[in-house]
């Protein structure tokens, strides 16, 4: 009897070992993507990319985020995910500092952590950016400068002054203006305004700015709520064609303003591609692929990743696009 039992155990063990080694080459991973706000159209669009990636590759990649942009809620979501036995965690942090402890916890549990729009995060394997934040800021500035005729006073708007990417873009825009457009000057009294990621607030703040500073001719928007909100203010105040706004924006929300010219250009990267690229990077890390300059994730705009200068963590793609009145109808999200 004992013999029989022993051979049974041995068989089971053997079978398990075989199954494991056989699966190693094409192991399917469980990857969670955590956006800032699962209801935001931008991240709804990101989820499409994650789903598509899951369908194409067979990995169990899914998106789950807080119902509103709230750092504490995001921590909660991540905590729940950690206990669900995931292999990789891809996060778009609301507030990098607030996330560090929970991300450290994830890494301790051998979960691969990939961030997006979170370059200051320390507790991650890699931070994947659609592009170099400074370059993207410069790109926004190029568009704004074009609209402003390369002269005048401008300022920058961010969701919160604690938001990492928004501020790096804004810094990039300011640096670009300094370097390339000698006739553009930054509004010294209010170089950076908070819009709280709320288009009603960006609308109200823009009105205040234009009242207080009549010389103000342009605003760099970073949050996707900034540009449409500012455009609404421009339209109402009767400042169309006198002041200009350019910045990140979602085509659907901005469509009307872009078409009638109140909003000069919106720039963005495709969040669905970013979502897919995060998953792809996570799988490469899990599979032990060596992460070096020139890495190809097989996702559009992420074919030739480069490490950010001086960093071995932050990887940059080149995935930005600009949309104007002519091209806006090509996008439906």
């Amino acid at each position, binding site marked *: 009897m004992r013999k029989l039992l022993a051979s049974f155990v041995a068989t089971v063990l053997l079978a398990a070992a075989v199954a494991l080694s056989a699966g190693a080459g094409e192991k399917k991973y469980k990857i969670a993507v955590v956006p800032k706000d699962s209801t*935001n*159209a931008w991240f709804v669009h990101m989820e499409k990319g994650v789903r598509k990636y899951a369908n194409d590759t067979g990995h169990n990649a899914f998106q789950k985020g807080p*119902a509103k942009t709230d750092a504490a809620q995001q921590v909660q979501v991540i905590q729940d995910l950690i206990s669900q036995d995931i292999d990789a965690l891809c996060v778009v942090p609301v507030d990098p500092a607030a996330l560090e402890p929970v991300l450290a916890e994830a890494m301790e549990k051998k979960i691969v952590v990939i961030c997006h729009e979170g370059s200051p995060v320390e507790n991650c394997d890699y931070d994947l950016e659609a592009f170099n934040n400074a370059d993207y800021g410069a790109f926004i500035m190029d568009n704004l400068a074009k609209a402003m005729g390369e002269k005048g006073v401008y300022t920058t708007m961010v969701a919160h002054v604690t938001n990492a990417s928004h501020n790096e873009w804004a810094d990039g825009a300011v640096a670009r203006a300094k370097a390339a457009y000698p006739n553009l000057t930054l509004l010294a009294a209010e170089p950076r305004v908070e819009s709280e990621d709320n288009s009603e607030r960006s609308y109200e703040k823009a009105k205040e700015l*234009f*009242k207080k500073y009549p010389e103000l001719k342009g605003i760099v928007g970073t949050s996707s709520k900034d540009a449409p909100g500012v455009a*609404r203010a421009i339209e109402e*105040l009767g400042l169309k064609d006198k002041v200009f706004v350019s910045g990140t924006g979602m085509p659907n929300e901005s469509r009307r303003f872009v078409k009638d010219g109140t909003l000069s250009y919106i720039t963005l990267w495709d969040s669905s591609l970013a979502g897919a690229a995060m998953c792809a990077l996570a799988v490469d890390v899990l599979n032990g692929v060596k992460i070096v300059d020139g890495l190809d994730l097989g996702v559009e705009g992420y074919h030739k990743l480069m490490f950010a200068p001086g960093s071995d963590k932050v990887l940059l793609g080149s995935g930005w696009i600009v949309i104007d009145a002519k091209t806006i109808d090509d996008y439906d999200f």
Partner: protein
Amino acid sequence: MPGPGNLEEPMRFKRHLRRSEPYIFAALLLLCLAVELRSGQFFTGNNIVDLARSLTVPAIFCIGEMLVLISGGVDVSFPAIASLSMYVVSRYLDDYQGTVALNLFVGAVLGLVMGGLNGFLVARFRFPAMLVTLGTTSVFSGILFGALGAREYPVPPPMYDLGKAKLFSAHNPVSGLSSDMPVSILLLALLLAATWFLLNRTLTGRGIYAIGGDPVAAERAGFNLFRIQMFIYCFSGALAGLTGVIRGSMMLNCHPTNLNGMEMTCIAACVLGGASITGGKGTLFGVMLGITLMTVMANSLILIGVPTYWQRVFTGAIILVGTGVSAYQALRGRRKPGAVARRAGHA
């Protein structure tokens, strides 16, 4: 201490000083003057119109919140009610082309039903209003984001037209700026008048104050507690639903998360304006002063020139000081010697 002469007058004056309205009014005036001094832009037509516009939505919320506070409850669910109504009206009436009255009506009815749920739980089971409304907030948001999968959505044409409709444009010849007075402000005025009438001229209104003062005594006096509480929460829910539709219209776009956090602003405004967290007290005038102060503050920090990094500190400090003054006034009222029931005992 009182000087010679008529004793009645100084007493009346002192009584007014025990209220919070004079302090809030003074604070508001100071703030306005500060903005004017720093920017020269405060007392311009278009700035006033801008403020009126920003005030509209939170002010209507405050009316509902105040009613609930007076009755001794608190409602934190109105942003969720408003968001759900806004979304349902935008999403499921998106082909509707008729008058905006229907959108507003549907929004109000949805809000009324949701408020009715709050009211039923509070009035029937005597659950604490704070917990009930926190709970229903989760339920309503759950329906909104879970069941309906809400996200940003364009508003239907009648709402869009309401958002663009203006009573007049205030044009500032110096700066060349003009601002539109939204038609929705009429709705605010109408609701203020109706609520004033309700609170001061109807027995139901007096009942709201009575149950906030002492629910047991109110019941003994013959007020129907259940009916009055149901009424309050239905009313406040209907206001929230209506306001959701107005907000969507004014933003020309339905943002289901846009109102999150508004409950704290509105409760703070009510308390600033003299409404008591423990019930029984509050006037429309005071609460409107409170929300005006909050709105002016939120929309004047750039005009005053408070650096971005200090804006939240500044706002927090004003709320702390303001509610602190209110609380201190209330405390002083209670400490007044005559007001304390002395346990003097018996022979």
